[in-house]
């Protein structure tokens, strides 16, 4: 009897649903890749700002860390609306972002949420049971549970039920498809772009080899696949997955490595992943699938390290704490590991490998992103919501140990309010943003929004800036991310850095050059090419005097009374040798400004400890994607 009543009700409902055409919530324009939805500019007019690396409550660790904000909150926040953070603070960006990639961990997508909600009697696994109890005990215990979880994922001792892909699949499918619908709902071509992605969390022994995977496409294509899990896979498996996706759907995907600084030397190896010589096939696949890396984010900055670049006085930015070991601190750092961890060295290694096997595996551009686990993409020093919900704004977060659960090493102030991705796209759509990333016409900032243009060529005039220099740059040169073929003469660079209209003035613009010398060794040099007050600041002993410091430590304020609104120059490499293979990228430094720790100290009336206070002022920066100079091929 009961069943027949239910059956009738169900039947009635089914027929009601079947009577209408099933359609999604979003329009055709919003659910595609954005092609033909908005007019394309002749060339990119302004950088689009975004975060390609944001976690929400669908991420196994973010949920455990406490976040209860989902993708829709994340998208609302990124597009400029006000939301209430998990800890109850209202949060709003000073300026909206132009795009957002939500990159929740693919492993057990959403499963921490299910664990949290599960009845206790269902949990038979002892480890899960302990985590479950910790999560319900207190927020602090919840974070400790997640720290254990990260360690377990790293050493391969995760409970079977969390790693079994088939058991997770049904839940993952629902969450993924719901998520893709949400993205389409918020995607507004020309105004705000919501991009599908996930994080591939490869982490052998705690060495961070994570990649964010982002898709070019709308849900018509992305619904045909599921995020690729990382546990017990290799990165070549990820590339197989991406190839299969592209082949099956006609769509496109790219992968963005991040936090090479805590990979203990594994992210940019000279060898192949098996320890043998790198094959040309591996190098080619890597360069094709991974055209950009995330150079700066909350967990430190991976551009350069003083150990590798002793002559670069600015190389140590964002290294403190992260240089001690790998992600979970299960492996301590040895100095020989640094070379496989920092981007500048990787670019040099790329040239060196190319010389040996003919292909450059590390032919990548640079972006910044947050890796925030709060669903809030914050990279502004005065509006920073922290790595995860446990360090959303509160009095002591800068002074405390923040070791992701371990008892050694890292403190709150080691975390950076960084960074964003700047994309030179011709329109704000999924396809245009993706394509700009694929051609590396992108740059990284540590959170501030300076405008950086770079063109390289051989024939730029000294007065290039007098005319329509952007059009001329595209016509007679290559933009950042591009390559020049050697013509036997020194390359010239048209470089313009314009300050963030709401931010600090600029201190200096530098070009970082890397090359392989005649004896096959890699070399680097940092050139100051333009700086503020060039009359007053004369280079002495090869060193440019510091720009000064206007930061009021007691009030967390600064003055734009030093520095410049724009720095630009046409620069020629003075040390060029014919036949040289080299890369050149631009680094822009702002004048010193207060870090988030100093804003916290003033806001909450707390006293920073000595180490934190010594690191409470920094020079925000931008890194362009490199331009490569390839010597003309012999006989070509």
């Amino acid at each position: 009897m009961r069943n027949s009543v239910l059956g009738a009700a169900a039947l009635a409902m089914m027929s009601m649903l079947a009577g209408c055409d099933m359609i999604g919530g979003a329009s055709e324009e919003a659910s595609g890749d954005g092609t033909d939805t908005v007019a394309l500019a002749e060339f990119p007019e302004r950088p689009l700002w975004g975060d390609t690396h944001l976690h929400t409550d669908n991420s196994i660790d973010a949920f455990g860390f406490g976040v209860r904000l989902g993708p829709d909150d994340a998208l609302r926040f990124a597009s400029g609306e006000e939301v209430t953070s998990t800890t109850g603070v209202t949060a709003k960006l000073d300026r909206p972002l132009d795009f957002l990639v939500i990159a929740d961990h693919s492993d057990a997508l959403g499963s921490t949420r299910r664990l949290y909600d599960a009845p206790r009697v269902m949990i038979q696994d002892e480890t899960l049971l302990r985590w479950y109890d910790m999560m319900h005990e207190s927020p602090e215990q919840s974070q400790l549970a997640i720290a254990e979880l990260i360690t377990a994922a790293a050493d391969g001792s995760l409970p079977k039920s969390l790693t079994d892909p088939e058991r997770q699949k049904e839940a993952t499918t629902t969450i993924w498809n719901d998520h893709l619908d949400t993205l389409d709902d918020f995607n507004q071509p020309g105004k705000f772009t919501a991009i599908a992605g996930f994080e591939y969390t490869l982490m052998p022994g705690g060495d961070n080899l994570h990649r964010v995977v982002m898709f070019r496409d709308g849900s018509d294509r992305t619904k045909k696949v599921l995020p690729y899990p990382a546990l017990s896979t290799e990165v070549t498996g990820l590339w197989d997955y991406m190839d299969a996706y592209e082949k099956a759907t006609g769509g496109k995907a790219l992968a963005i490595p991040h936090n090479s600084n805590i990979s203990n030397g594994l992210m940019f190896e000279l060898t192949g992943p098996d320890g043998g010589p790198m094959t040309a096939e591996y190098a080619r696949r890597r360069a094709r699938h991974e055209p950009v890396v995330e150079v700066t984010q909350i967990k430190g900055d991976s551009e350069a390290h003083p150990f590798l670049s002793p002559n670069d006085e600015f190389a140590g930015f964002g290294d403190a704490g992260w240089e001690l070991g790998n992600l979970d601190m299960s492996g301590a750092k040895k100095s020989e590991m640094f070379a496989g961890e920092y981007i500048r060295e990787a670019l040099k290694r790329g040239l060196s490998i190319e010389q040996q096997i003919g292909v450059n595996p590390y032919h990548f551009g640079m972006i910044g992103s947050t890796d925030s686990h709060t669903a809030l993409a914050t990279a502004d020093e005065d509006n920073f919501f922290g790595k995860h919900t446990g360090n959303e704004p509160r009095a002591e977060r800068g002074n405390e140990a923040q070791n992701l659960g371990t008892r050694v090493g890292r403190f709150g102030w080691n975390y950076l309010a960084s960074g964003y991705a700047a994309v030179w796209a011709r329109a704000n759509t999924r396809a245009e943003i993706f394509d700009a990333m694929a051609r590396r016409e992108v740059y990284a900032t540590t959170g501030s929004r300076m405008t950086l243009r770079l063109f390289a060529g051989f024939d730029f005039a000294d007065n290039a800036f007098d005319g329509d220099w952007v059009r001329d740059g595209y016509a007679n040169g290559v933009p950042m991310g591009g390559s020049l073929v050697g013509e036997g003469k020194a390359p010239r660079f048209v470089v313009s850095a314009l300050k963030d209209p709401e931010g600090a003035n600029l201190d200096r613009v530098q070009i970082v050059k890397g090359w392989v010398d005649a004896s096959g060794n890699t070399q680097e040099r940092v050139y100051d090419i333009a700086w503020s007050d060039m009359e007053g600041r004369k280079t002495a002993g090869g060193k440019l005097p510091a720009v000064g410091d206007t930061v009021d430590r007691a009030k967390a304020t600064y003055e734009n009374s030093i520095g410049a609104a724009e720095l630009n120059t046409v620069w020629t490499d003075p040390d060029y040798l014919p036949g040289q293979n080299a890369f050149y990228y631009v680094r822009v430094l702002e004048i010193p400004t207060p870090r988030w720790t100093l804003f916290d100290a003033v806001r909450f009336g707390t006293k920073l400890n000595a180490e934190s206070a010594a690191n409470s002022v920094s020079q925000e920066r931008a890194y362009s994607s490199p331009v490569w100079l390839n010597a003309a091929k012999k006989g070509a």
Partner: protein
Amino acid sequence: MKIPGWTREPLVHFLIGGLLLFAFFAWRGEDVDPASRSIDISREQQARIALQFEQTMQRSPTDGELDVLVDQYIREEVLYREALRLGLNNDDAVVRKRMAQKMDYLAASRAETQQPSDTTLQAWLEKHPVRFAPDSQLSFDQLWFAERPAADAAKARLDAEGRWQDLGERISLPPSLDDASSSDVTARFGSEFVTNLEGAAKDEWEGPVRSGFGFHLIRLRDATSGPVPPLAEIRGQVENNWRAATMAKRRDEAFRILRDSYDVTLEK
């Protein structure tokens, strides 16, 4: 308040009754007959399992892989049924939340799948014009100066001579923009500049005004908030907005109907 017509329809009452029963039995865990210990896996079900594999790997599973998948499916089904027999779904936060979500979904599903008529959407557009109004479009000229005295001097020259093109200092900002959206102008020039620009008189050189870059002389040539586009141009956007609002309304209405039949007492 006027009760919407659809709440008086017998079909709706029937459905809500059915839903209640459905939810109740789902809650009590008795919708699967505990006595049933036979599991039939049809060819169709096997095909579905194979399809899901294909979705991730973009290739069909081998026979061995499919066997493993089917075994896993059986395992899950057995455990699921036994869990229901034991009533493990009772007071389970995730089941509870999921069931509530499904009720919401059912209440809103008609709105989700309904194809609204042009008349409905036109009315919606006319009721909420602000939501669909485009960003204001700004056309202007500007000259930039690092320091205020230079800007003052240039303003004096401009007023006297009327020529402006070569008076400013060089900066990588466009001297003129036509029909640029205010959000784009804000991204390039900053909010202070746009506030000044939007407050400026038309076709007059004004300033110096401040921006994050320094000082500007500005001439606003045109500022249009733009008419709300006709429905045909923004049908998708209007439909989205209408659908989201209608779904939320349906959910609330359905809940209110259900809620009214409950007595809730809060112990003080």
